[in-house]
């Protein structure tokens, strides 16, 4: 009897120690993330400081990028980053939405799993493979089919015509945007599918019961119930598109210029870093590249903040 009591007290003490250790460890891990993040930001700012001091705001507004005369401006890279991600979202969101709706609402049960798995497999393809495929397969196809078509049709329109001007080069901003669109698909799709599946069947069936069409159910029931998750998925995809490096580097044409045509070559922040970091000799050059990295971090931060604010406003509206 005494033995048992003793044993119990002993294991209780041990469990207590384990508890403390465990709590300490989780605390440590959580703080560790903060430390890493702070470290990255501090070193980015420190590295970027020489360039930012040298160029001032001109670093953001200038479109020069001349390693010979050491004049650096981030505008073409910022422009390319935003435009390619914009195209990616333009393609990715509707397609992902369509796939997610198909899988959750319309798909015969036996097909659900294969399609879902295939979409997720898209995410498993390394980005360098997308780049090589884009350069050797996708770009030549675009060059001989879609691009001439766009140039001959949309290119002749007033206003937006200049967006589709110039020779079909195959590689350029548009190609990069399209590849990014494919790359963000699995992220947006799987989040959308998961949140669509959380919509209570009762809600949907009541709507169907009063004679709503599938579209009406999706638009009036599914989307409003899940918009927080949907926006989260879109932001996840956007974050990936903004930072994607390798695939973009291969197909964007890497020219530090802002041109009106979407077919023209351009560059993004991450592509510039990947291209030029290894052979960048000279302190100002290196510092300017680090400053580009800082700009990208700030853009991502702004996007995330905007998403959070949007969600807050949506929740407030829903509360009313």
């Amino acid at each position, binding site marked *: 009897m005494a033995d048992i009591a003793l044993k119990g007290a002993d294991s209780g003490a041990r469990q207590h120690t384990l508890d403390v250790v465990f709590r300490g460890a989780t605390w440590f891990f959580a703080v560790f993330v903060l430390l890493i993040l702070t470290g990255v930001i501090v070193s980015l700012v420190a590295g970027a400081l020489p360039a930012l001091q040298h160029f001032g705001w001109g670093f953001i507004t200038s479109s020069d*990028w001349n*390693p*010979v005369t050491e004049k650096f401006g981030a505008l073409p890279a910022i422009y390319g980053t935003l435009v390619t991600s914009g195209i990616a979202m333009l393609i990715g969101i509707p397609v992902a939405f369509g796939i997610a709706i198909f899988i959750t609402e319309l798909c015969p049960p036996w097909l659900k799993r294969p399609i879902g798995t295939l979409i997720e497999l898209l995410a498993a393809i390394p980005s360098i493979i997308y780049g090589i495929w884009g350069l050797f397969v996708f770009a030549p196809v675009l060059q001989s089919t879609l691009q001439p078509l766009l140039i001959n049709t949309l290119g002749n329109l007033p206003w937006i015509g200049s967006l589709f001007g110039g020779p079909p080069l195959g590689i350029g901003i548009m190609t990069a945007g399209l590849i990014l669109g494919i790359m963000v698909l699995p992220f947006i799709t799987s989040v959308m599918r998961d949140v669509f599946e959380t919509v209570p069947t009762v809600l949907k069936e009541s709507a169907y019961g009063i004679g709503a069409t599938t579209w009406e159910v999706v638009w009036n029931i599914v989307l409003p119930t899940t918009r927080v998750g949907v926006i989260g998925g879109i932001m996840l995809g956007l974050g990936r598109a903004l930072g994607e490096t390798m695939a973009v580097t*291969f197909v964007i044409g*890497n020219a530090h210029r802002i041109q009106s045509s979407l077919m023209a070559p351009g560059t993004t922040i991450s592509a510039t870093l990947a*291209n030029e*970091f*290894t*052979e960048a000799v000279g302190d100002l050059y290196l510092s300017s590249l680090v400053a580009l990295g800082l700009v990208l971090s700030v853009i991502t931060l702004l996007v995330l903040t905007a998403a959070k604010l949007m969600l807050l406003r949506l929740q407030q509206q829903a509360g009313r």
Partner: protein
Amino acid sequence: MKAKTILMLGAMLAGLGAVGSAANAAEISGAGATFPYPIYAKWAEAYKAKTGVSMNYQSIGSGGGIQQIKKKTVNFGASDAPLKPAELDEAGLTQFPMIMGGIVPVVNLPGVKPGEMKLTGPVLADIFLGKVAKWNDPAIAKLNPSVKLPDQAIAVVHRSDGSGTTYNFADYLAKVSPEWKDKVGVNTSVEWPVGLGGKGNEGVSAVTSQTAGSIGYVEYAYALQNKMTYALMGNKEGNFVAPNAASFQSAAANADWKGTPGYALLLTDQPGKDSWPITASSFILVYKKQDDVATAKAVLDFFAWSYANGAKMAEELDYVPMPAKVVSLVEETWKNEIKGADGKPIWTGPSS
């Protein structure tokens, strides 16, 4: 490229296998340029098999190589562009050329075969400046009376990544075109007035071969292995020469190595009637004053062995070995300049 990749993989595997067995043997390390990596790796593999000394080379890029040797984290650095004598002196470094390659303009014009198109430096510069924008421009037509030139825009393709290839190519254009020198200049990457950027030789070659009417520049090995349509170049003497080992060697042999301090010399636009005008060499950087005499000697022994025995391996990978004349000059430099803490030369001749 395929052959190079396989060799690189082979060298890496060999390196992995060797880690355990060669714990006692000396080890030397270097870092820098990516262009000579396959041949350095091959030499290292052969040298290791013969002497047991292993050489570990990280191909992180010339900029990284220069930084690492300055921080003394490696025994030697490697750069595709030579450092200026002032920069060498400031860091206490000496440099020497180790291996050569050629840079070749390649075109994609339907019906034009390799070696049919002739170009001169100034015309090439004008094409890359965007001044000569069509293939039937009189400047090109005058050089190529027998080639049927289409009324087609020229798509210029350049390297998007910083590279020694671009450095040498831009240096050549700056030597032959004052306008290029003023407007664009020379660096590992430059502000291109026109054109598309491809990442690496493989990127430039892919974009060039997919875009009809394009012109780009790639390393010789690349043009050869991909059977690309190279152009003949007019050299300093006004001869049109084809890119090959002989014309690269001619450029190196005719260059004024002796009169150039620190061998800070680019092999572009060199004299000699057979010289290819866009030849490039890759450089090794070591400290003049060495604290660790044994390692420094091992480094120089490796390079001496590679000069003496590495020519055939270099040619197999489409690199061009340095001419004997240059090698003996370099070895003389080692004797005179690279010394231990006691002031005695470290390397006095090939060890048996």
